[in-house]
């Protein structure tokens, strides 16, 4: 316990780094999965193939991805971009199926009503389909956020400092409290982000509130 108290500064700094590195892939994953999920939803014939292909991205081991991405993107193996891109790929892999399912969850009668009163295709997507798909998209985003925050720790293997540092450093120096502190910190920020997403969902989708 004394290790934790003495190193609160370090833990705090790594936590902020960790959040910063996780946030971008979560946001990018959401933004990229919207067109991908829409594509899978819209074109029924290719739906199975698209979703399976995107889902398979998640099975690529992260270390392999870290090795593959630098030559493809022309970046350094040790670059933070390497970690961000890898985490974004995993986020898209999770989110795409959620977005496709979310769009399918919108009542066809509502979509038809929107058409009947004169929504154009583009406007209907942003103002009707997507907001109504919101609850399922949010469910996916919560899974993605927790997964990304947890997965982010592997960044330390390519020399990117975040809470993963507490794992490798604690292991090398055999400081068990350091490893435990890392685990607790990851869990705490995962829960915190999850909670913030739930709050944001309530604020953005007031019609879904119970008894509302």
């Amino acid at each position, binding site marked *: 316990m004394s290790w934790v108290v003495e190193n609160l500064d370090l833990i705090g700094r790594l936590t902020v780094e960790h959040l910063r590195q996780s946030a971008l892939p979560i946001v990018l994953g959401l933004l990229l999965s919207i067109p991908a999920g829409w594509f899978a939803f819209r074109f029924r014939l290719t739906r199975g193939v698209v979703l399976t292909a995107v889902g398979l991205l998640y099975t690529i081991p992260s270390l392999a991805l870290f090795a593959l991405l630098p030559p493809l993107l022309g970046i350094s193996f040790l670059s933070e971009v390497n970690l961000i891109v890898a985490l974004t790929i995993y986020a898209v892999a999770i989110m795409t199926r959620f977005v496709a399912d979310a769009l399918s969850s919108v009542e066809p*009668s509502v979509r*038809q009503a929107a058409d*009947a009163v*004169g929504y154009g295709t583009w406007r209907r997507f942003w103002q009707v389909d997507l907001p*109504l798909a919101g609850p399922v998209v949010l469910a996916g985003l919560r899974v993605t956020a927790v997964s990304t925050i947890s997965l982010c720790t592997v960044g330390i293997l390519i020399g990117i400092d975040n809470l993963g540092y507490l794992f490798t450093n604690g292991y090398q120096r055999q400081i068990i409290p350091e490893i435990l502190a890392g685990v607790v910190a990851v869990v705490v920020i995962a829960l915190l982000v999850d909670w913030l997403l739930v709050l944001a969902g309530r604020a953005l989708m007031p019609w879904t509130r119970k008894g509302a």
Partner: protein
Amino acid sequence: MIEFRSVTKTYPDGTHAVDDFSLVVPAHTTTVLVGSSGSGKTTLLRMINRMVEPTSGTIEIDGESIAERDPVRLRRSIGYVLQNGGLLPHHRVVDNVATVLRLEGTPKQQARDRAMEVLDVVGLDRSLATRYPSQLSGGQQQRVGVARALAADPNILLMDEPFGAVDPIVRAELQTETLRLQQELHKTVVFVTHDIDEAFLLGDQVVILETGAQVAQIGSPSEIIENPASEFVASFIGTERGARALRTKETGHGTVLVDATGRTQGRLVGDDDEGTA
């Protein structure tokens, strides 16, 4: 005025939903398309705002073919009331009513002010304006649906089995309300239903449809009841049943009307009694 000219709708699998249908819907009156499921009545209705495109034939509004018009703009110019209201669940009542005005670019506050006025017109309390559709009863949702259709003051109102999903008491209330509104507003209304009583109650012109939108008979309710064009029409409107097959029976207090099962349905009044009866 809306005019169907030899309109046909054939689906890729070969079914003829509509086969060579022609009809004139006079302006400022209510035309009811009535038929059982498979009669193509909803298909016909949806052709008027290009939700369904005819395979052949033309539809004209005031002499202008709608095929030339942009479907989205066309839809905004026509009020549409759907079964179950068809409200957007994520918009408050006031914004649902203001939908078409907002789509047409009316500033938000102005659209909302107008929406509040229309709530009055359809007999909804303004306090409901900030609710979501799920917080309303079926009848209230349907009124919001009507308000939304009226908000942009269209000339044409399409009503697609609007009262099919509400209970009989609320339905009767909404029907009365529809008659009242029509007396005030004089829209060109095309109303679809499978309920012949509703058709006779609301329609100035009633179109009875058989499978494939074949016209069995067109006329005013009186014309159809007095002179059904075919066995099909007679059986569809139930001339042999209920309150449409009455015979007279003499009683100590004058002549009464009795239905096929022997129940007295009403009293026969002479012309002189009118107004006092």
